[in-house]
C-alpha cells in the first residue's frame, strides 16, 4: 500500500451558471500522506470548499461539475465510482466537517441519533449498540453521554461543532476533511476545538485536510501547507519550509496581514485589491494584478512550477531564472 492516502491530480471543477462559468478549481494537485495533516490555506472564494466537496463527490450538480482530473483515495479512483460505492466510502473512509456548526446538524433529530446513524450504516450494528457507541463518541469529544437525547438547539456553537466532530469520527475514517472548522466559533472556543482535533488526529491516526484562512491555525496543527489562490496551489511545502522560506508573493501577503504581537505599532499590510473574477480569470498569473513584484511576463504567461526541495514548490515567474530570488521580507 502506498503511503499516499489522498492524491489529487490536475483537478478542474466548474460551476456552470446562467451568468457564465465559474472556474472554481483550475488544475489542482495535492497529496496527503497517511496520518499527516495538510493545511489548505486561502481567502474566501479560492475554491477550498469546492475542493473538499470534490473529494466527498458531493459537488452540487447542477451547477457544479468535475471537468477533469483525478482523485485517488486510499488506492481507489473516486471519480470512477458509482453513487452506491461512494455512499459506502463517505463517513467510513473519508468524513467531512462543514464550516458552520450552527446549521450542520439536523434540528429535528437528537444528536445521539445523528451520530448513531453513521455507525449503523457502516458498522452493520443495531440501534442499541449504535446508540451506546454514539454516547461513547460524545464522551470522547467532551460532552456527557447522557446528553445524547437532546436536540441541536440545546447546545452552544462550540458544543455543536464537537457533535459534528463526533459524527465525522464515529466510524474511524482514514481521512478527515475539516472545512474551516473553527471560523464560525468564538476565539476561546476555537482554541478548545482545535486542541480537541489535534488530540483526536493522533488518537484516531487519521490523515486530515484542514481548510482555513488562518495561518495561526495551520502552525498549530499541520504538517504540510498548501496555499491556494484562484483555484490553484501557488505554493506548497512542509510547515517549516513555508513558514521559514516564504516563496510566493501571495503567501508573503498572507503573513503580512497577520497582526504582529511583538510590535503592535507596526502597521498591518493587507493584500491590496480583490481576488480575480472567477468568471473571467486572467490569461497569465491569477495573482499578478495584486502582486507587488509583477513583471510584464506575469500578465501573459502562466507561471511555471519551481521546486526548491522534494516537498517545497512555488508557481511564480520570479524564480524561473533566479532560483535564489528573495522576497522583500516583512517576515522575521
Amino acid at each position, binding site marked *: 500500500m502506498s503511503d499516499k492516502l489522498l492524491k489529487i491530480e490536475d483537478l478542474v471543477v466548474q460551476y456552470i451558471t446562467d451568468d457564465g462559468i465559474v472556474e472554481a478549481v483550475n488544475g489542482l494537485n495535492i497529496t496527503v500522506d497517511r496520518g499527516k495533516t495538510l493545511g489548505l490555506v486561502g481567502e474566501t472564494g479560492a475554491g477550498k470548499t469546492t475542493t473538499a466537496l470534490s473529494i*466527498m463527490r458531493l459537488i452540487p450538480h447542477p451547477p457544479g461539475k468535475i471537468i477533469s482530473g483525478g482523485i485517488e483515495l486510499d488506492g481507489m479512483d473516486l471519480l470512477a465510482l458509482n453513487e452506491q460505492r461512494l455512499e459506502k466510502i*463517505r463517513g467510513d473512509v473519508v468524513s*467531512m466537517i*462543514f464550516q458552520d456548526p450552527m*446549521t450542520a446538524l439536523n434540528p429535528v433529530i437528537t444528536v445521539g441519533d445523528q451520530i448513531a*446513524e453513521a455507525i449503523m*450504516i457502516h458498522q452493520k450494528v443495531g440501534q442499541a449498540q449504535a446508540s451506546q457507541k454514539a454516547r461513547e463518541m460524545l464522551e470522547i469529544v467532551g460532552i456527557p453521554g447522557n446528553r445524547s437525547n437532546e*436536540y441541536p438547539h440545546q447546545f452552544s456553537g462550540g458544543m455543536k461543532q464537537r457533535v459534528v466532530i463526533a459524527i*465525522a469520527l464515529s466510524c474511524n475514517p482514514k481521512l478527515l476533511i475539516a472545512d474551516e472548522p473553527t471560523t464560525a466559533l468564538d476565539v476561546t472556543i476555537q482554541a478548545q476545538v482545535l486542541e480537541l482535533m489535534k488530540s483526536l488526529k493522533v488518537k484516531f491516526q487519521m490523515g486530515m485536510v484542514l481548510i482555513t484562512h488562518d495561518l495561526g491555525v495551520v502552525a498549530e496543527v499541520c504538517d504540510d501547507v498548501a496555499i491556494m489562490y484562484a483555484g490553484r496551489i501557488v505554493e506548497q511545502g512542509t510547515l517549516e519550509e513555508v513558514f521559514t522560506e516564504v516563496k510566493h508573493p501571495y503567501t508573503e501577503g498572507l503573513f503580512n496581514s497577520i497582526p504582529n504581537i511583538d510590535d503592535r505599532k507596526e502597521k498591518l499590510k493587507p493584500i491590496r485589491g480583490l481576488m480575480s473574477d472567477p468568471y473571467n480569470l486572467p490569461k497569465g498569473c491569477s495573482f499578478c494584478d495584486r502582486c507587488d513584484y509583477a513583471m510584464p511576463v506575469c500578465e501573459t504567461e502562466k507561471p511555471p512550477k519551481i521546486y526548491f526541495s522534494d516537498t517545497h514548490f512555488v508557481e511564480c515567474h520570479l524564480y524561473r531564472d533566479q532560483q535564489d530570488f528573495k522576497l522583500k521580507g516583512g517576515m522575521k
Partner: protein
Amino acid sequence: MTKYILRRILMMIPVMLGVTLLVFFIISLTPGDAASMILGQEATEESIAELREEMGLNDPTIVQYVRYMGDLFQGDMGNSYATGKTVNSEIAQRFPNTFVLTVSAIFLSVLISIPIGVVSATRQYSIFDNVGMIIALVGISMPSFWTGLLLIIAFSLKLGWFPSGGMEGFISLILPAFTLAIASTASITRTTRSSMLEVIRQDYINTAKAKGVTRNVVIRKHALKNALIPAITVIGLEFGILLGGAVLTETVFSWPGIGRLMVESIQRKDTPMVLGSVIVFALAFSVVNLIIDILYAFIDPRIKSNYS
C-alpha cells in the same frame, strides 16, 4: 404543554364571541321578516305582529344578541324558524356527515400532495415537476362548485360510475371528497415542493450525505420532516378554506351536511340555524388550528421546548 393547550382553548372564547356578533348583525341587516316567513303567505297582519312581539323581534338588535348569547352559554341554540326543531338536534344529525366529508378530503389531499411535492422538488424542472406544477396551478384556480359540476358530468352522467348526489354509502362520498380535495391538494403540493427545495439546500443535508446516508433516506428522514413544518401550516389554513368549500360542495352534491344546512337556512332567513352552523364551522376551524399547533410541537423540538 397542557397549560399551553388550556390557554389556547380559553382563547377560543373571544374568537367565538366575535364570530357570533358579526354574523348576528349581518343577518339582522338582511331584508325579510322571520315572523311572516314562519306563518306563511296567508297570515294576517295581526298574527304576524303578535308573533314578532312574542319572539322579541321588535327589541333592538343588541338586546336580541345578548338574549341569544345567554341561551347559547346554557347550551341552547334555539329552535329553527323553518321546522321548529331544535338547532342542537339538527346540527347533531348533520355534523357527522360534514365531518366525514371534510376529513376524507383533507386526508386525500395530504396523501396525494406530500409525495408529489417531494418528488417534484427532488426532480426540479423535470417533466414530472413541470406537469405537476401546471396541474397544481389549474387545481388552485378552479372553484369547487365548478370542479364538482365537471366531475358530475364526467363520472356520473357520462360514465355512470358514481351517483351524482345524495349520501348512500361510501361510493357517494368519492366525488364530493375529491372535489373538495382538489384545491387544497394543489396548494399543499406547491408548499411541500418549495419547502423541500429550501430544505435540501441546507447544510445538515450535506452532513447527512457526508455520513454515507443514501439518497432516499436523506430525503425521507432528513429532509421531509423539516419540510413538513411549513407544509403543516398550510394544511391547517387549507382546512379552513376546505370548510368553506364544504358549503358549496355539499350543495352541489346534495350532501346532507352543515354546509348545505347553512345555505338552506340563509335562504329561509332561519337565523338560529344559520348562527348554529356558523358557530360549528368556527369551532371546527379553531380546533383544527389547535391540533396543528400541537402537531408542530411533536415535529419540531425547538417549539416543544418553548412550551415547557
